[in-house]
């Protein structure tokens, strides 16, 4: 799925990183807890979060996220936007809540970070 398709699906606003609009996104993960993101994320992830301070952008840079989606109408602070521009990380803003945003992406075949748990008989 391209970033452009994700923007359309989440009715999102892209506030920086326009040159990445046709980039392919392979998987996504959502959390407001950067400690968890640092522990479990994989490079190339689309990070969905409601944490709007600049540490969310810093974390995205450290883990090598492809883009960040701020959910439930959140917007990163000016320092965060500046950092995202400097690090060339696209930022999307959506009014959808975390659950709905993740659900929309998952139902359109954008997978999560981890393999599905094996079925128990």
């Amino acid at each position, binding site marked *: 799925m391209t970033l452009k398709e994700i923007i359309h699906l989440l009715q999102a606003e892209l506030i920086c990183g326009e040159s990445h609009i046709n980039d392919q996104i392979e998987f996504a993960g959502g959390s407001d807890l950067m400690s968890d993101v*640092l*522990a479990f994320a994989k490079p190339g992830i689309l990070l969905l979060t409601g944490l709007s301070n600049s540490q969310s952008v810093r974390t995205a840079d450290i883990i090598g996220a492809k883009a960040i989606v701020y959910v439930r109408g959140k917007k990163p602070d000016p320092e965060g936007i500046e950092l995202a521009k400097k690090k060339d990380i696209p930022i999307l803003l959506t009014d959808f809540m975390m659950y709905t945003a993740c659900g929309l992406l998952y139902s359109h075949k954008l997978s999560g970070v981890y393999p599905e748990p094996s079925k128990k008989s």
Partner: protein
Amino acid sequence: MKDKENVLAQKFEIKGRDFGRAGNISSKIKEILQETGISTSIIRRAAIATYEAEMNVVMYANKGIFYFSLDPDSIRLKIDDKGSGIKDIALAMKEGYSTATEEYREMGFGAGMGLPNIKKNADKFTISSHPGRGTSLEILFFLNDSESL
């Protein structure tokens, strides 16, 4: 023995509770590593460990010194902070254990994952602490596969 000419070393100072600059050192070290051609997976592990260690100093200590060195065989990080230290290191190494304030949790940190995550990403990790004085971390990443076994 390392040839001194092949060692890149830098020292950074970290101020406690300086959240505005928190993460700057980690970004800088990641940039340095990206210029060297080291494998992206090692850079990623080093960047995560660096960031976790830097945030720990910002959140829990008054100040700290961050030493970074790179030689043909390894990346070495040493972080010495001055602060309250850790009374029970074994407990602090348990995933989920945290003494973080609500303020830090609201900032997205303090889930008790920092130290275990540093250990998970490092090839070698050493921690020592003197309660009331501070904590020291030594984190090592081997650049050649044979050494990481």
